[in-house]
């Protein structure tokens, strides 16, 4: 009887090790699959000479259109999700944009990045946030609030770790400084800094960069 128990324990241990191995293999496979960007044909549009450098997380590529000669560097998370009823998300990235590493775009409504936009690493752009009004439910389980469109206009620049929140339009050739948290519209050719972001300088043709409001 004792011998039987030993054998059964060993078999159990072996089964457990095998199932752990299988689990590791599944996790590794799923990770590689999730972090491999979809092929260009899966996107609503994907221009010539554009790249999404793996690893990258891309959801709902059929709602994402990418222009020509765009480079999205590694560890991007294009989180485009139909999360609000009756709203189909749309993320558009214009021609010749360069998006830095570890960029996170959370889009359930409309996010437009126009042509020639340059962003640094660790930029976050979101057109919604998790609702938190119900005090009895975890925030993660509460619905996303109604999105408000975000637009990064032509030639704008987002510094390292910049955060652009819902409903914001960043003007043409505006500079969003490193670490700025943008909660209101940024006028064109203006440098904003801080949390919340405030204009500190603006560019005037002929005078160069002058202190805000100058």
């Amino acid at each position, binding site marked *: 009887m004792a011998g039987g128990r030993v054998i059964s324990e060993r078999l159990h241990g072996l089964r457990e090790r095998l199932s752990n191995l299988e689990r590791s293999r599944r996790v590794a496979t799923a990770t590689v699959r999730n972090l491999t960007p979809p092929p260009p044909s899966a996107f609503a549009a994907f221009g010539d000479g554009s790249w999404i450098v793996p690893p990258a997380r891309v959801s709902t590529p059929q709602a994402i259109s990418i222009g020509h000669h765009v480079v999205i560097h590694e560890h991007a998370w294009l989180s485009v999700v139909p999360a609000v009823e009756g709203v189909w998300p749309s993320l558009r990235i214009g021609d010749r944009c*360069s998006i830095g590493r570890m960029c996170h775009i959370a889009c359930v409504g409309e996010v437009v990045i126009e042509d020639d936009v*340059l962003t640094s*690493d660790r930029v976050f752009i979101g057109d919604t946030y998790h609702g938190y009004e119900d005090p009895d439910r975890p925030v993660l389980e509460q619905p996303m609030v109604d999105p408000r469109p975000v637009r990064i206009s032509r030639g704008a620049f987002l510094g390292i*770790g910049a955060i652009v929140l819902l409903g914001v339009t960043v003007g043409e050739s505006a500079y969003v*400084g*490193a670490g700025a948290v943008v909660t209101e519209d940024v006028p064109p050719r203006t440098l904003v800094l*801080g949390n919340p972001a405030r204009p500190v300088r603006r*560019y005037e043709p002929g005078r160069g960069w002058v202190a805000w409001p100058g």
Partner: protein
Amino acid sequence: MTERAERAGRGRAGRAGAAVGRIGRVLCPRLLAALPRPVALDPPAPGDLARCGPGSWIAAPATIVGAEQVALGTGVIVMEQAEIRAVPAAGAAEPLVVIGDGTRLARFATIWATVGVEIGAGVGTSDAVAIIDCWRPPGAPAGAIPDPPAGRVVIGDGAYLGAGCVIGPGVVIGRSAYVGEGAVVTSDVAAHTVVYGNPARPTRHWTAEAGWRAAG
């Protein structure tokens, strides 16, 4: 030889397999060597830097643009995923990036230099610190309007930079100052001063007479 390998070695199929294996072993390293390597993510050899003191190293992967503008003292550690872009503007003093003895930059550090970044000796940082002397990544295509002016960044000996902080253009950080986690520093920080916030403000300050006192 194991039983399985013996079995594989028998018969026509086994011989063919072994031949393919031999050809593969000869060809594969050559094919791999012929493929383009991700050179951008390899740290530069010490000889490619302006200076690399004994015991200094840059961990892989790293993005180093303008390695010949980077001077490391002795025992400098730059951890993995660093991004250093050094592209001299006209009239900049070279080398652009100088890192002092015993300084340690933790993972995901970013340094952009066009007019000069000087990091003292014994400086410590936490992860994801950005030290930038200009407003756009050096080497990026020019925008429709000129960038706001760049300014030399100096970080004093023994200072500490908390996780995710940003040291902006033209900032001078004093000796043994402490830059708090997530702070965005846009103006100078005095020696022995703690700053927090975005934009960063002093919270504590040390003097020899009074010791540590709340700032302001």
